C-alpha cells in the first residue's frame, strides 16, 4: 500500500530525513514516534506530495505521489496545524473539498459532524485549534481515502474528542480497510491503535517493528552478577544501555531472547528478571539521548 524506499530530504545543508525505508500494509495503522525536529513532519510532507524527496521514492497504491493528482486524490492529510483558508466558512471548506475530491461524501461529513458539532457558518479563523483539527479530520475522512496520513492529530483535543477521534479511526480501518499513517507525541494513544511502530531520531529510523514484536524484543533486564562480569557487556550488539545501581545491573536490550539470558548466565549472572516496557519507555530507551541518559 505505502512503500517508502531509501527516502532522504535535505533543506540546504540540514538533512531532515535520511535513507528512510517503510512498508505499510493495507488496512493497518502505522505509527511514527520521534522527538521534536526528528523528521516526522518532513517524512509526512514527502508522503503527501508536498515535498519532493531528494533521493528515493514514495509510492502509494503503486503510484508515485509527487505531482501525481490521481494518487493524491486517494490520500487524506490531517496536519498538525490549521492549513485551511482563514476567511472561508466551514461550509465553504466543505464545498472546496467537494469540488476537489471526486469521492467526497457530504453525507459522511454530516454524519461525523453530528458527533463533533461544528457550526458550518463559522469562519475557519474563528475555530479553536481543536475545532480546526476536527474539521480537518472530518473533511479528510469524508473524501473516503485509501490512505489517511495524520500528523499529531490529537494535539488540541480534549479527552472526549480524542477518544471519539481514535474510535472513528479504528472503525474506519475495520469497516473500510483504511490504511493509516500517524505521528503522535501521545504514545499511549499509538500503543492503543497501532499495528506497527517506527521510531525516528535525527532523521533516521532507529527502530521499526510490529508493536507486539517490539514489546517482545525491547525489554529491561534486572541482572545480579556474582562480582563483575568478565566481558564488556556494552559491546554486545543486543545491549542498548547498562546502568548499575548497587549490585543490580539494569540492562536495556532491543533483541531480547533466551539465548541472551543464557549468555548472561555464562558471564556470571546469578539472577535475571525481565520487565515489560510501555511504548513510552521503549521510545525513551531506544532513542539515542534517552539511552545515554539511562
Amino acid at each position, binding site marked *: 500500500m505505502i512503500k517508502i524506499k531509501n527516502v532522504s530530504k535535505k533543506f540546504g545543508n540540514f538533512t531532515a530525513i535520511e535513507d528512510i525505508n517503510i512498508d505499510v500494509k493495507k488496512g493497518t495503522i502505522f505509527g511514527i514516534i520521534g522527538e521534536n525536529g526528528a523528521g516526522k513532519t518532513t517524512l509526512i510532507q514527502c508522503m503527501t506530495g508536498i*515535498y519532493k524527496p531528494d533521493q528515493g521514492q514514495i509510492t502509494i497504491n503503486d503510484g508515485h505521489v509527487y505531482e501525481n493528482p490521481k494518487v493524491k486524490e486517494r490520500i487524506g492529510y490531517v496536519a498538525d496545524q490549521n492549513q485551511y483558508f482563514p476567511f472561508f466558512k466551514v461550509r465553504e471548506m466543505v464545498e472546496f473539498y467537494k469540488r476537489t475530491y471526486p469521492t467526497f461524501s457530504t453525507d459522511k461529513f454530516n454524519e461525523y459532524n453530528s458527533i463533533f458539532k461544528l457550526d458550518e457558518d463559522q469562519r475557519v479563523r474563528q475555530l479553536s485549534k481543536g475545532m480546526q483539527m476536527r474539521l480537518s479530520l472530518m473533511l479528510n475522512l469524508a473524501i473516503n481515502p485509501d490512505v489517511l496520513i495524520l500528523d499529531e492529530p490529537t494535539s488540541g483535543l480534549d479527552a472526549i474528542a480524542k477518544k471519539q477521534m481514535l474510535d472513528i479511526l479504528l472503525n474506519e480501518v475495520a469497516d473500510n480497510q483504511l490504511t493509516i499513517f500517524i505521528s503522535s507525541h501521545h504514545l499511549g494513544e499509538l500503543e492503543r491503535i497501532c499495528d506497527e511502530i517506527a521510531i525516528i531520531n535525527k532523521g533516521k529510523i532507529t527502530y521499526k517493528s510490529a508493536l507486539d514484536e517490539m514489546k517482545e524484543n525491547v525489554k529491561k533486564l534486572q541482572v545480579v552478577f556474582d562480582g563483575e562480569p568478565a566481558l564488556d557487556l556494552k559491546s554486545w550488539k543486543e545491549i542498548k544501555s547498562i546502568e548499575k545501581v548497587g549490585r543490580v545491573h539494569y540492562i536495556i536490550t532491543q533483541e531480547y531472547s533466551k539465548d541472551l539470558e543464557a549468555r548472561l548466565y555464562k558471564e556470571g549472572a546469578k539472577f535475571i528478571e525481565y520487565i515489560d516496557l510501555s511504548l513510552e519507555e521503549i521510545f525513551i530507551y531506544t532513542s539515542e539521548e534517552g539511552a545515554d541518559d539511562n
Partner: protein
Amino acid sequence: MITKHPLFWKEWKNSKWWSVLITGIFLVMFLAINSKLENIQRLINDVDINSNRLYLESITFFEGSFSNALLVATLFIIPIVVIISTLLFRNDRKGNIGEFMGALPFTKGEQFKIKWLVGFLTLTIPFLITSILTVLIRTANWKWISDFYQESRVVEHDSLLVIMLILFQAYLFIMAFFSFLLMIQSLYANNIGASIIGVISLFAPWFIVETGLVTLSRILNRDIRILGHERFTLFYSLMAPARDSIVVNNGRGYDIHMSIFASQYYWLKIAVLFLIIILSLYLGSKSYSKNENSKNGQLIMFEWARILLVIGFVICASLLGNTGIRVLFIRETNGIFEIITLLISGIAGYKLINKILSIPGGVKYD
C-alpha cells in the same frame, strides 16, 4: 467547465472584487469623458466661439478624450495588476496553507494556468464592460459629433473602430504586464519579492541602455550611440497604449522630438504583446512545475535566477549610484570619476543584494 474548478472557485472569490474595482475606475473614466464631451457640445452651441478654432482644436476629440482618460485609468490599474499577481501566489507560499495547497491533487502547471485564467477574467470583464460603455456613449453622442465634423476624413480618424483598437491595445498591454508578472512569480519563491523584481525588470533594460550610454559617453568623453538604440526606446514607447513623445537621434548630430501615436505600428505592437502573453504563460507554467514547496518563502527558487538577479541588480545599482552622485553632488566629471563611482556603487549594490538574499525565509522543518 473551468469555473467549477476548485482552485478557480477559490481564487475568484477574492479576485472578483478587484474586477469590480477596475470596472469602477473605468466608470470614473467615462464620467470624465462624458463631462468633456458635454463641454465641447456646449462650446459648439455657443455662437460666440470661433468655430474654425474650435474645429482645429477638437479634431478627433472623442479619440483624444478617450486616449487620455484611458492612459490615466491604466496608471491606476497597473498597481492593481501588481497586487493581483502577488495575491494569487500568497496562499501557495504561506506556511501551513502552502503545505495544504501542496498536498491537494493538482499539478503545479495546472495551478499556474488557473491563476492566469483568474487574472485573465479579472482583467477581461472590466474591459468588456468598458467596450460596451464606449459603444453606448459614442452612439449617444455621435449625431452632433458627425454633424460638427462634416468632413468624412476626420470622421474616419475618430471612428469607433479606432477607439476600439486603442482599447484592445490597452487591454493587451495590461494582460501582457500581468502575464509577465505571473511568470516572474514562477521564478522566485517569495511573492512580494517576485513582484518587486517583476516591476523593476520591466524598466531595467531601458534604464541600463539609456543610462549606460550616457555614462559611457562621459567616460570616453564623446557621444556614444549604438545601432538600434532609438528603436529600443521606441519599442518601450510603442507598448504604451497612448500617444507619447520620445527623443531620437536624427543622424545629423542633434536630437529631435518625435510623437508616437497609439495607432502607429498597431499590428506590430499587438503581435509583440500577444507574444509576451503566450511566452509568459508557457515559460511560467513550465518553471512553476519545477517549483518546490520546500523553498517557499525564500526569494530564490532557481540558482540561475539568483545569478541573473545579482548581475542585474549590480549593474543597475552601479549606474544608479553613478548617476545619483553626479546629479546630486558634482556636475562636471571626468572618466576616472565615472569609473570610481561606478565601481563603488556596484560593490555597494553587490553587498546589498547579498544581504537581501541572506534574509532567512522558507519552511520550518520538523
